């Protein structure tokens, strides 16, 4: 490699060198900056998806709501679900994974930095393509699981569903590259001594999620392609008139869709498993059991998909089998909940904002988990299918679970990313408003569902006994919106403040607290050597003969001294001789090409093959340019 970098090769585009400004963000391959890009983009999509939810709740606040038409309502609930799943929770998890997995395992970057950038740009391309549908004749309207035959051209004319299909195929490419990248990074780039069973639980859960993505994304991609061909080229996969089987769509979708549920929740479980020990000042209770139950959830997540389809009529044998597997998967989940509780038991609890969100996660996720188990009972599920009880359930696991966990991570890790602590008072206000608003919004939906209110109907008549709880739910949704506003104010306030967070503000246990904040591009001036689980904690504390924590005086440990030594000897302190991957425009260029191919595919019937061709050429140019440049060049 050293030979290749002596002379810059001739080529039409100069290698980007900017370290600041707009183009430095377009061309960055730094996993931390890509993590920030994921986080900011996903948060913006979160606001959009939240506005969609508010419109839905506005429509349902009173009987015979007139805020939205039926068609607008269909588009909004479809886009709300699609956005929150694919453009918010998944990329938010990717944001934390990108930023923290390399740091937590003591690496300087991910295994494939440019592929990492590509994954982000492709996700953005898919998300933007999906949202331009609002301007180009109407958004998708078939619900986030797009059941046939609602999605065939007869019942869903126009291009809305095509945007959905192509948009998700494109974001899927990003998920796939991110998954492969995380797997290789976690397996290959661990620092010396960082064995698998010493890895922080967040890294473990991210690894399990990556495997789930690796195997789940291709399945939905096939389903999306089949429906795309049905809609655009006259194939008949889901056309019952020609012998096509709409249930095949359901099988393919949920064979992806149920692992997807764990793709959404496991990263939050990982974050909570990091936060609870720190704020309890105790090691995670039963580390190995937490890790293995995460792996068990990953495996068993593949055997429960048909519980989404109990009402389809698969027959008693299939229903009974999937009922049993669904009850069974609650076991490793329950194990984790008890481990988290045991972690806090007898701990020296500090109720800072990250801890509040983590504790909120446990409570809300447990409620959602319990209502989930109630679905496994088939006769009961017949009553609940497609009612607001289902809506209540999955919001308790995905909002009360995933979103609470992700906010816990945001407050916990903000000092690493920004060098500043988010404001505690506003943080606590955010938590309590969100906690109250969340339960007001989704708690009553259990009752509404039991009373038979169907989901996805844009109006309900008076006199059904649903008025009060719908109004309460709408008030709850507005309270959640208020809490998000508080969070935004908190971000602005923190950004304006000049107060720096201390190096290790929470008295942390893992490697991200050992480096300067915000971390330098190369993360670690010297690659750390890891001696155990919670290595950083054990460098700070030891136990006296009574089992009480005793702080090791700074510089008193052998490690500290040898670190000091290394800095002097090799001059690594400023990272002068560390070669980091050079920025590159090509990942972004390739994803622009893919986006154009996507538009071409949507309008192919109107003769947009030329757009596909242009996009294809740009994609190829991006890939070839990428293949022809060295990973790292000196400038």
């Amino acid at each position, binding site marked *: 490699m050293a030979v290749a970098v002596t002379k810059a090769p001739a080529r039409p585009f100069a290698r980007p060198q900017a370290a600041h400004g707009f183009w430095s963000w377009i061309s960055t391959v730094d996993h931390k900056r890509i993590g920030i890009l994921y986080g900011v983009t996903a948060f913006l999509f979160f606001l959009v998806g939240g506005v969609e939810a508010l419109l839905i709740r506005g429509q349902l606040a009173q009987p015979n709501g007139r805020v939205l038409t039926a068609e607008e309502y269909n588009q909004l609930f479809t886009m709300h679900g699609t956005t929150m799943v694919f453009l918010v929770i998944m990329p938010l998890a990717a944001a934390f994974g990108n930023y923290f997995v390399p740091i937590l395992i003591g*690496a300087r970057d991910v295994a*494939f930095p440019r592929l990492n950038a590509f994954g982000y740009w492709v996700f953005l391309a898919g998300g933007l393509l999906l949202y331009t549908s609002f301007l180009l004749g109407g958004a998708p309207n078939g619900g986030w699981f797009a059941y046939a035959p609602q999605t065939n051209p007869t019942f869903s004319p126009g291009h809305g569903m095509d945007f959905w299909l192509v948009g998700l195929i494109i974001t899927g490419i990003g998920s796939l590259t991110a998954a492969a*990248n995380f797997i*290789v990074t976690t397996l*290959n780039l*661990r620092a010396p001594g960082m064995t698998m069973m010493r890895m922080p639980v967040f890294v473990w859960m991210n690894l399990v999620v990556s495997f789930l993505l690796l195997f789940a994304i291709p399945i939905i991609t096939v389903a999306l392609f089949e429906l795309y061909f049905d809609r655009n080229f006259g194939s008949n996969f889901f056309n019952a008139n020609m012998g096509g089987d709409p249930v095949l769509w359901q099988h393919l979708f949920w064979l992806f869709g149920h692992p997807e549920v764990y793709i959404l929740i496991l990263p939050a479980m990982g974050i909570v498993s990091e936060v609870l020990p720190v704020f309890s000042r105790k090691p995670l209770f039963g580390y190995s059991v937490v890790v293995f139950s995460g792996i068990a959830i990953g495996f068993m997540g593949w055997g429960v998909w048909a519980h989404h389809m109990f009402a389809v009529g698969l027959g008693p044998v299939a229903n009974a089998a999937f009922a049993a597997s669904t009850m069974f998967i609650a076991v490793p989940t329950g194990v984790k909940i008890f481990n988290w509780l045991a972690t806090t038991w007898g701990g020296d609890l500090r109720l800072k904002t990250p801890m509040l969100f983590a504790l909120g996660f446990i409570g809300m996720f447990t409620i959602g988990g319990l209502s989930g188990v109630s679905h496994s009972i088939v006769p009961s599920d017949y009553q609940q299918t497609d009612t607001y009880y289902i809506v209540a359930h999955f919001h308790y696991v995905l909002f009360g679970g995933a979103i609470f966990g992700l906010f816990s991570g945001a407050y916990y890790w903000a000092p690493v990313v920004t060098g500043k602590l988010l404001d505690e008072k506003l943080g606590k206000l955010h938590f309590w408003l969100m906690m109250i608003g969340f339960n007001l919004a989704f708690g009553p939906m259990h009752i509404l569902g039991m009373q038979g209110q169907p989901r996805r109907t844009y109006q309900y008549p008076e006199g059904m006994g649903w008025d009060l709880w719908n109004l309460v739910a709408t008030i709850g949704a507005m309270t959640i919106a208020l809490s998000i506003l508080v969070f935004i104010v908190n971000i602005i306030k923190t950004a304006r403040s000049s107060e720096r967070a201390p190096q290790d503000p929470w008295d942390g246990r893992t490697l991200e607290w050992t480096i300067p904040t915000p971390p330098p591009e190369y993360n670690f001036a010297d*690659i750390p050597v890891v001696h155990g689980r919670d290595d950083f904690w054990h460098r700070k504390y030891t136990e006296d003969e009574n089992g009480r924590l005793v702080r090791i005086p700074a510089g008193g440990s052998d490690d500290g001294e040898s670190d000091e030594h290394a800095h002097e000897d090799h001059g690594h302190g400023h990272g002068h001789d560390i070669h980091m991957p050079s920025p590159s425009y090509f990942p972004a260029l390739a994803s622009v090409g893919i986006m154009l191919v996507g538009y071409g595919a949507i309008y192919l019937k109107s003769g947009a093959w030329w757009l596909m061709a242009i996009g294809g050429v740009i994609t190829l140019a991006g890939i070839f340019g990428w293949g022809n440049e060295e990973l*790292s060049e000196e400038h």
Partner: protein
Amino acid sequence: MQAAIGHAPHTPAPGDHDYAVTGIDSRKLGMWGFLASECLFFGALISSHLLYRSRAPEGVHIPHDVYDIPYTSVSSFVLLMSSLTMVLALAAIQRNDHRRLRIWLLATAFLGTVFIGGQVYEFTVFTHEGLNLSSSVAASSFFVLTGFHGVHVTVGILWLLSLVGVSLRGKLPAEKHLQVEIAGLYWHFVDVVWILIFTVVYLVPNTH
């Protein structure tokens, strides 16, 4: 550059770009991950076809009515032989024999192109027999499955040809043989998938 072969193997240290705890190069591990994902991609397509293989309206052909097994056997054989030439290409670059590397890469790409040509011909014949994407669900699933396989072979051909180009520009020295090996992994995978498709889709008789 030529002397690189004789050098003691470079052992990457933690923090180097080619550091690998598992001992398997990251790029190779990434390709294995991608191929694992592809298994599910083709798995879902093959499952769709197995569900639909005999479903067609009265009097309309299902794919089994129009298969020409001897013809497809020959083109399958051609594709299988391309795996042999791929192995020879890798062996050539590992011996630092760049002329033979390019010959075998071109041979592999050529055999792949013959296979694709055969598929185009086959699709054309089938269409004339009245079997097309919309004629039945059996045909829909057949064309989408084999079509996606054809796309994979085509991507492979482009990859092989660009390797030839890189080699001609002298940018593919022997120590970068991993690039050929990874392309080979992909190529062999696409071949193996075809063995599965040929067996399950073409050879297993239709019990309808």
